[in-house]
């Protein structure tokens, strides 16, 4: 099980728990503002952009090539950007904090 904290653009902090699925699915199921997941999680739409908290980035890992390319569509891309449909929920990411980029 992993606890994941989302911080939305209006600085609301929401911590959720999950064992399976993607972080995007977890966010959509819990109505986290700014995570839309329009393509259903196949890395095609870039509507689930998060900035991983710097100290958590190693835990979460770097984006794949296609994900990194898709992130280039985003204006607010940073060194810690991920599309969270591509982050699998697992014990490995327990305790991470993700800042939601979109409103």
């Amino acid at each position, binding site marked *: 099980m992993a606890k994941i904290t989302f911080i939305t653009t209006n600085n609301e902090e929401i911590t959720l728990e999950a064992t399976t*699925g993607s972080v995007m*699915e977890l966010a*959509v*199921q*819990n*109505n986290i*503002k700014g995570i*839309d997941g*329009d*393509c*259903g999680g*196949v*890395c*095609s*739409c870039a509507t689930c952009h998060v900035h991983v908290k710097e100290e958590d980035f190693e835990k979460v890992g770097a984006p794949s*090539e*296609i*994900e990194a*390319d*898709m992130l*280039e*569509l985003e204006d607010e891309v940073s060194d810690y950007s991920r599309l969270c449909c591509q982050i699998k929920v697992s014990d490995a990411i327990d305790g991470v904090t993700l800042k939601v980029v979109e409103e």
Partner: protein
Amino acid sequence: MKEKICVIIGASHAGVNLAFSLRKEGWEGNIQLFDSDPVLPYHRPPLSKAYLTSDDPIESNALKAIESYKKENIDLHLGIKVTSINRDKKSITLSNDDEFLYDKLVIATGASPIIPPIPGIDTAKNLFALRTAEDVLNIKKAILNTSSKRAVVIGAGYIGLETAASLKKLGASVIILEREERILQRVTSPVMSDFFQDIHAKNDVDIFTSKNVIEIETNDKINTIKCSDGTSYTADLIIVGVGVRVNKQLAESIGIEIKNGITVSETTATNIEDIYAIGDCSFHFNPRYNRFIRLESVQNAVDQAKVCAAAISGKSPIYDSIPWFWSDQYDIKLQMVGLSEGYDDIIVRHEEGEGIKFSVWYFKGNELLAVDAVNNAKAYVIGTKFIKKSTIIDKTKLKDPKEALKPVNLLIK
């Protein structure tokens, strides 16, 4: 003051996104969302792709959790049909004769698969379209219940091709019959048609073009599909993917202007006050391509929903998105941006030494109209940026695989 009511007919990508976008825009009124499909609204694109080949329940595919509707105070009415609109009274009537009043009405009724009037099609065994969660469940059941698993897909558009790839993964033998001379004829260029024909052949899916199905004969659960050229094909399961028809009856019945869909303005408004139309059913103007179009896509549904929500909330938005689409077949990821229709020049760019990875760039003169990117998100993203900004690019450099695919390398210096 009496609370305002927004009624939305159709709870798929367009209708559901509209309901949530209205809340984002600060609409405080009542939201009534209707759909005849009884299943909690779900993502449609995976139906022919991942969902068909997985055992995941449809709930894992939901657009929003049921709790989210409650939290946002959206009244979701599923499994019930809206049978009429009364424009003078500003109300809708349901199949159970209940009536709902509205201040704003949004038609997001989408489209339905065409089942062509082929003799014998009504009595064929295990014949399905693919549009709803129920269709997919029926297809899965049919595959499980036949031992020989011979599938014939009628129609080689994206739905037909994706379904063929998925059925193959499920262990079926698959034949695709296409009426036109090439697959994807209505939607893409010969380059892409050839590419996908080849990919399917490599995966042991037989595609036959110029095949006009004239009759389906069914004996003892086995279908025989007969074509006008005298050939025939045996099928335990038939998938029909020959396109869709707009669900326009409700709009038509009250005098809303219909052309190749429900005609809407740049704010998604119809010609009748307080009535809007969004998603697959809308016929709208695209300023970038300077013509009216109808799109069957998630992008269009979601973006129009946002525009419509802003319009209903009293703003003056303009719908001017660049269309984008995707398709997944086997290990091929196709991403498309823009509309290639009307192109007079085409550049195919293969990336060096990386397996299947290429992009097709469509131009009219120097103007970049569209990009199809195969396993190449970079080309898709760069294409999107160029199209949005109407950037003129250096075609010679684009053609040269030694020039790395970066915007700065492709600009005219």
